[in-house]
């Protein structure tokens, strides 16, 4: 099964819009939303039934037993995450605790123990296709681990499909790194602005470090033809396949707000994304990768 991951670095460039269009065009039997921090793919891909929900346990959280605590302060002194509160009694701030267990180790009277904590919810839709997604609990860490679980959940149900399409999260940190593992190709949705170009360069550098095949497409290209040219030149210089240009299209906003994909309606962005999809499938199918399997810089 080929796994295609859609990333962007910068948020709001159109990852989910492109991912939902690709899922429709490919009639994908398997797809996932790895933006566990702010998932949106389910909003545009109507599901007939409710998902199967599973609690996701992140790292455990420490708890201090008030009756046993002698207020020696060692836990606070050794906690590297400043998670110990002392007023009115010694307690652990759940939002800061990373579950390392140092407080439990240093406590001389055994007042501290670690307890499992729910850090989010995995959701699995089993309708005409397998759709794996999740929602991280407010303010939680360990989003990378939840991303890994989303992908594991997806593969556990079906692994003989030709193609899996995965919507990624913005940024370059742990959830993005977790989503990169095991994918065959990353499609970067770039935006022609100074910010978009800077973020695109950072996400490409990140993907390279994990030796993933990368291609680029430019969204809203006509909002800044000059910057779109710069992206094209960057791709040329770095030997990155540039798979197409999608115009800014108010119809796309309308389609999204009607919970539809841009390929469900006849609009300029929908026509352009079909072109990008064709190019992407050709490249993904090309085992040799056209010499673009990039080495670590």
């Amino acid at each position: 099964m080929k796994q295609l991951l859609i990333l962007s670095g910068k948020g709001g460039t159109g990852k989910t819009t492109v991912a939902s269009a690709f899922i429709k065009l490919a009639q994908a039997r398997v797809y996932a939303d790895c933006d566990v921090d702010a998932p949106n793919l389910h909003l545009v891909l109507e599901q007939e039934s409710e998902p199967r929900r599973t609690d996701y346990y992140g790292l455990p959280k420490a708890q201090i037993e008030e009756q046993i605590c002698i207020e020696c302060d060692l836990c606070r002194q050794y906690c590297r995450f400043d998670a110990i509160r002392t007023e009115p009694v010694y307690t652990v701030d759940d939002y800061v605790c990373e579950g390392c267990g140092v407080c439990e180790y240093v406590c001389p009277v055994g007042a501290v123990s670690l307890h499992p904590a729910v850090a989010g919810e995995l959701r699995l839709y089993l309708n005409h296709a397998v759709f794996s997604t999740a929602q991280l609990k407010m303010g939680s860490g360990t989003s990378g681990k939840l991303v890994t679980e989303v992908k594991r959940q997806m593969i556990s149900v079906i692994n003989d499909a030709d193609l899996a399409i995965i919507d990624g999260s913005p940024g370059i940190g742990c959830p993005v790194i977790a989503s990169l593992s095991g994918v065959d190709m990353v499609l970067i949705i770039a935006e022609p602005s100074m910010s978009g170009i800077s973020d695109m360069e950072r996400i490409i550098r990140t993907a390279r470090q994990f030796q993933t095949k990368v291609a680029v497409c430019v969204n809203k290209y006509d909002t800044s033809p000059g910057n779109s040219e710069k992206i094209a030149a960057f791709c040329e210089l770095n030997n990155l396949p540039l798979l197409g240009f999608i115009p800014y299209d108010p119809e796309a906003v309308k389609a999204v707000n009607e919970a539809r994909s841009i390929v469900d309606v006849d609009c300029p962005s929908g026509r352009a994304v079909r072109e990008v999809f064709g190019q992407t499938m050709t490249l993904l199918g090309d085992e040799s990768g056209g010499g673009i399997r990039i080495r670590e810089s």
Partner: protein
Amino acid sequence: MKIAVLSGKGGTGKTLVSVNLAALAGDAAYIDCDVEEPNGHLFFKPADVVTEEITVKIPAVDQGLCNGCRECVEFCKFNALAYVDQRLMIFEEVCHSCGGCILLCPLRALTERDQPIGVIERGFSEDVRVMTGMLNTGEASGIPIIKKLLADVPAGLTFIDCPPGSACTVMESVRDSDYCILVAEPTIFGAHNLALVHELAQLFGKPHGVVLNKCLEGPNPSEQYCQAKGIKILARIDYEQELGVLNSEGLVAIRESDRYRALFASLLEAVREEVQHETALDPQR
């Protein structure tokens, strides 16, 4: 006075709002906590930049002293240590720098060393103090950089440009703020993610208001959400090509256009009124 600008969804205009408000406020500070993709500096182009390297503590092992007791391997909740082929291996990328392994090694075979994960750049753009956190590519967590950025916030008006989402990095950025500006775009994605950060602001008891950005004709799901929840709408910014071009060229809109200066001036006024109102309600704040 610390004002956090956040959005849940990426690309709604957090940087646009925080950069322009900081530029307008006079003698203010701008802190870019979106350390994975920092962009405010592209607009401010700060001068006299001083760069500080940010490091985390990572264990290093003296293989000669290690006897393979595996106590550290069993203790580490992050699976950052493994004992393979008579050697202790350390996986730096998953280490959380808790220091536990160093504490408990009976033979003191483990020590700590500083591992760079990124930088903080501090400079000036006219009268705005610009502070930018930048995570190195390939690093998993920017939290130590965000903590450092927020540890020395200057007195006076400070605008904090937060990362997207509602996870630990956002929480860290919002935790000590006095007021939250939530920026939302007019899509069901925007409204869904607005609901997430709204919940976060409420969870921490932070007073907040919404800026509706990229407004188009037709229904605005984010506006509907605000009305349903009774959230104060601080400003509406229409989708306009002129603003889009200024933004894509990396220009500070209020420095280029009187019209945008007036628009952000009324937003700043609305924020100041809200903050004063909140302070009057809660003198402890």
